């Protein structure tokens, strides 16, 4: 037995601390995971409220609800909060809760750094949200922060840069923790290729985070020095190049897209086998596919900027490299489908979300191939078609996977089964409204409606009206989700069994429900039936 595990044994009999100290000084992976998940839920509603403002303004043509400056602040902050405050922390919360349970580790490898990773986030978002109250208002240049526009931000500018540095620091520390946990803390019997797919997807995601979050930090540091310290990294007047910022930003930004979707792939790869009652088809090929997607994510960044003017060779390279991503993604979609083939399927709420993910994420993938085509993208660029594309990837993609994961593991976390009927109602309302909201945006974009505008020509009125109604319905439907989750947290509902579902595979189902404060203090021997689907 190793030193680290032996040390942990000296204090394994106490439970959690009482009161606020349990949360403020938390080092337990389950407590920190819970805080991450609750934080992301709050941010989902903050960012969602901003989406409601956007859709209210766009309900009909003309300016009637907010002024254009505030509208731009809404689009910028909605994106920053949803990406860095809702989607990413939700995945980190799931990683905190589930990775140690899935690999038979007693906790994360670096529990105190884990505490720090989490507690930086509320500070970062307080700073970011506080910019609504400084002269000039919140950042309004779009989440991409392109200079020279972003340098016109008012007093919010240094707050924006600082908060992004903090978010990056939190992400990097979280990623280090996840990699070290997976590489160093696995139960002795668990070789890398025996790891569950969720763990695999997070291992690769964490490497992506370490590779690209410093790039974002570097880019915004250079913005800061351009603004306050007389440098000219991106200022043409001083010999700099504003397009260079776009290159650096998207060198971060495109892997960031995969940071937000690879863990979702992992979740779907856990949920579908459980409810199809079959092993995951092509386990190892899934690992290679995720790795291939992660590699390709580093060589496609300029497809976000086809219209800036680049050599034809560059356009062709980035176009073909982007299209290549469809190959490993197709492998994954094929494998999920093959997993269900002749399976004894049942359709509980997590499975419904996973299936909706499969259909709707694929729509986002197809429109992704469309915007990858250079001559066509000249038309699509900066239009609502792009808005439709990335919302299909991020909402019924990433967000549906997160919600499916919450329904899937909530009984393990709380010891209570959620209300299946309410879960199904939540799913159907969400799945219908998400399409009502985002599908018409394809038509709007193809017809020429630009993104990031508070007003539009009257020919766009009908589809915008439909999208806004869908958005209001989508927002309201999420209150059911909150009710279901809070009910389980408060101990309502019937008790969950340890296995929860019908003979699911994986170490997390071998511990009691709710999972006790300390688990796997002694590294488990992995029973054959609990091994990953290899």
């Amino acid at each position, binding site marked *: 037995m*190793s*030193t*680290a*595990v032996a*040390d942990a044994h000296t204090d394994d009999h106490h439970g959690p601390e009482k009161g606020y100290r349990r949360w403020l000084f938390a080092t337990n992976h389950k407590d920190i995971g819970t805080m991450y998940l609750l934080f992301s839920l709050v941010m989902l509603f903050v960012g969602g409220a901003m989406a409601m403002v956007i859709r209210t303004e766009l309900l009909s043509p003309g300016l009637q609800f907010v002024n254009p400056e505030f509208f731009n602040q809404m689009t910028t902050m909605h994106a920053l909060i949803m990406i860095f405050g809702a989607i990413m922390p939700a995945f980190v919360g799931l990683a905190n809760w589930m990775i140690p349970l899935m690999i038979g580790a007693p906790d994360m*490898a*670096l529990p105190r*750094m884990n505490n720090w990773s989490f507690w930086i986030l509320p500070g970062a978002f307080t700073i970011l949200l506080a910019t609504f109250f400084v002269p000039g208002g919140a950042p309004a240049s779009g989440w991409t922060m392109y200079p020279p526009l972003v340098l016109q931000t008012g007093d919010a500018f240094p707050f924006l840069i600082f908060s992004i540095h903090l978010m990056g620091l939190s992400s*990097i520390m979280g*990623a*280090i*923790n996840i*990699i*070290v946990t997976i*590489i*160093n*803390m696995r139960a002795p019997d668990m070789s890398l290729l025996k790891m569950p797919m969720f763990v695999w997807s997070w291992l690769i995601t964490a490497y992506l985070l*370490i*590779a690209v*979050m*410093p*790039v974002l*930090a*570097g*880019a915004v*540091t*250079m913005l800061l020095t351009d603004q306050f310290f007389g*440098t*000219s*990294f991106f200022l043409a007047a*001083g*010999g*700099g190049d504003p397009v*260079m910022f776009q290159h*650096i930003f998207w060198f971060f930004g495109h892997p960031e897209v995969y940071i937000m979707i690879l863990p979702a792939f992992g979740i779907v790869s856990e949920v579908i086998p459980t409810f199809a009652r079959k092993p995951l088809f092509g386990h190892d090929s899934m690992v290679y596919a995720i790795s291939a997607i992660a590699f390709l994510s580093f060589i496609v960044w300029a497809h976000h900027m086809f219209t800036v003017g680049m050599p034809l060779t560059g356009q062709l390279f980035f176009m073909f490299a982007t299209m290549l991503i469809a190959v490993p993604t197709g492998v994954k979609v094929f494998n999920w489908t093959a997993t269900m083939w002749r399976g004894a399927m049942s359709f509980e709420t997590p499975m419904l979300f996973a299936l909706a993910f499969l259909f709707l994420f694929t729509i986002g993938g197809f429109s992704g191939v469309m915007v990858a085509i250079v001559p066509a993208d000249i038309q699509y660029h900066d239009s609502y078609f792009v808005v439709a594309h990335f919302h299909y990837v991020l909402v019924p993609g990433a967000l549906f996977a997160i919600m499916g994961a919450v329904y899937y593991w909530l009984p393990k976390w709380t010891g209570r089964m959620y209300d299946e009927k309410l879960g199904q109602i939540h799913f159907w309302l969400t799945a219908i409204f998400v399409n009502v909201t985002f599908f018409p945006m394809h038509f709007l974009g193809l017809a020429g409606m630009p993104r990031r505008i508070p007003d539009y020509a009257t020919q766009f009125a009908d589809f915008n009206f439909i999208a806004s109604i869908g958005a209001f319905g989508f927002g309201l439907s999420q209150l059911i989700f909150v009710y279901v989750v809070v009910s389980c947290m408060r101990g309502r509902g019937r008790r969950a069994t340890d296995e929860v579902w019908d003979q699911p595979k994986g170490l997390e189902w071998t511990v009691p429900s709710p999972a006790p404060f300390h688990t796997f203090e002694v*590294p488990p021997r992995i029973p054959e039936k609990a091994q990953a689907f290899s």
Partner: protein
Amino acid sequence: MKRDRRSAKSVRNAALMLAAIALAIYLGFIFSGFFRS
């Protein structure tokens, strides 16, 4: 003797190595900008 990968020393070394990579990327991007301009 093969070092136990779960030992405190192995965990610390792995974490420090990853942190050093992150720092190198951050500084590398900024300084490459300096040398370019």
